[in-house]
């Protein structure tokens, strides 16, 4: 009986959370096109999110490209298909691994940062102070951050993809005597428009989800300073889960178009 009621409570809380998040997203769409626009703050957020994630994305992307190539090499050699390496790595990085890994890194780095920052502003009454001064804190803090993550993530994904391909090319160059030029020519020959477009579109959705969840958790942070930690932590967990759900839907939809 107790377990059933706990399960019921958990399910109920889950749906309440989804409802609140949807309501938060609806408020974003309602207010995003209404003046006044906070361009200066948007640019500042874009710079902060892009610039501060750059090293992390560089290191992660490079290692992913390196490891993927090193791990795949023995199997491809076994089947006499090592010349397919640039094609395989290029397609898997551009279509799936690049966007998902970059988004997960950014979920950890950006969603937690936004959750903690807004949570701290909430508990120290900075958001209230902003509202009392006649500035809409939702527009100034939330909309600018969600817009910044939505715009910056695709750029970071493209950059991460290039770095990962460079890591892969380095392995092929050292182990397989494949020149960088040949490697990249093969990769770009293998890639088509239908590989790039869905990956870029889903990166926008990933960015939106990261910003939305980070802002939602931070903006409604409760229970004092302990709530700030909870906001940061749950923002990462929720954003990461949401990324996989979006990825599944994106792959499912692009697969339908691919078959057509």
């Amino acid at each position: 009986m107790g377990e059933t009621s706990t399960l019921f409570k958990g399910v109920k809380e889950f749906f309440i959370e989804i409802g609140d998040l949807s309501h938060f997203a609806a408020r974003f769409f309602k207010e995003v096109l209404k003046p006044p626009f906070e361009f200066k703050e948007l640019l500042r957020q874009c710079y902060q999110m892009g610039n501060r994630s750059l090293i992390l994305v560089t290191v992660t992307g490079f290692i992913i490209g390196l490891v993927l190539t090193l791990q795949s090499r023995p199997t491809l050699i076994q089947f006499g298909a090592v010349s397919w390496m640039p094609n395989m790595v290029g397609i898997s990085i551009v279509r799936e691994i690049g966007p998902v890994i970059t988004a997960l890194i950014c979920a950890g780095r950006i969603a937690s940062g936004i959750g903690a920052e807004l949570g701290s502003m909430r508990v120290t009454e900075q958001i209230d102070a902003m509202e009392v001064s006649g500035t809409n804190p939702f527009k100034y803090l939330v909309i600018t951050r969600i817009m910044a993550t939505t715009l910056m993530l695709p750029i970071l994904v493209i950059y991460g993809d290039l770095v990962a391909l460079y890591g892969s090319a380095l392995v092929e160059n050292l182990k397989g005597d494949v020149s960088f030029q040949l490697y990249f020519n093969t990769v770009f020959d293998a890639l088509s428009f239908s590989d790039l477009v869905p990956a870029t579109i889903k990166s926008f959705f990933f960015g939106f989800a990261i910003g939305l969840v980070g802002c939602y958790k931070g903006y409604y942070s409760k229970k004092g300073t302990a709530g700030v930690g909870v906001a940061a932590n749950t923002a990462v967990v929720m954003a990461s889960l949401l990324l996989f759900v979006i990825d599944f839907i994106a792959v499912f939809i692009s697969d339908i178009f691919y078959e057509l």
Partner: protein
Amino acid sequence: MSFNMTDQDQITSSNESAQGGKAVIEIKDLYKSFGDNHVLNGFNMTLMEGENLVVMGKSGSGKSVMIKCLVGLVKPDSGTVKVLGKEINSLDQQKLDELRSDIGFLFQGSALYDSMTVRENLEFPMRRHKEKLGVVADTEPLVREALDNVGLAHTMDLMPVELSGGMKRRVALARTLILKPKVILYDEPTSGLDPITSKEIIELMRSIQKKYGTSSLIITHDVDCARVISERMILLVDGINYAEGTYSQLSQSTDPKVDAFFKK
């Protein structure tokens, strides 16, 4: 059980109090609950023009909720809240923001924006109210004047994290003054400060009131602050204005609930 001050002590009616001028804030039958927690149960209050009114109450008695109702940060369940003649709850967002420029609010923890310098903190409220201030481009003189008022002009380019607790409170006060408000609401202005810094803040509040002729509503549980600054006091107990009068009237009360506030 409500304590009727009129029967037991000499109490001044709110409408007769202070200078007898016009009311700048009027609260009537204010109710606010959070779930089963009934915070305000029919609170009434009037702040007259140029008056310093102190509302005292225990922690969790609803003081901060009441003061947040005055600027529309908390929506009451029922009751009327009029500030400068305008009913807060019937205003649209634009009108509410316009009215807010006439109300200064000093938050309990100063609430300075961590990511901005002192200068940017002071410039921030001016973004939406430049017409009122007649400012076109150069905000520097206004920022400098506000910081001069609190003796901290040299901190203009520092970050809040580089300031002490007392300095933060003074910068927050300067930020409150920058829009030249007609009413200033102080939420626990001396909480978390040492006695000497508290005295400095109280003195600053008095000098600002003299210089600009503002009306002040001070929420506190600091008896010394109330003694020095109040012209009239309200004791908030169980969500109602339990007792009302001057500091000397209330401090001599024999009612145990009132007496409890003044016991050392």
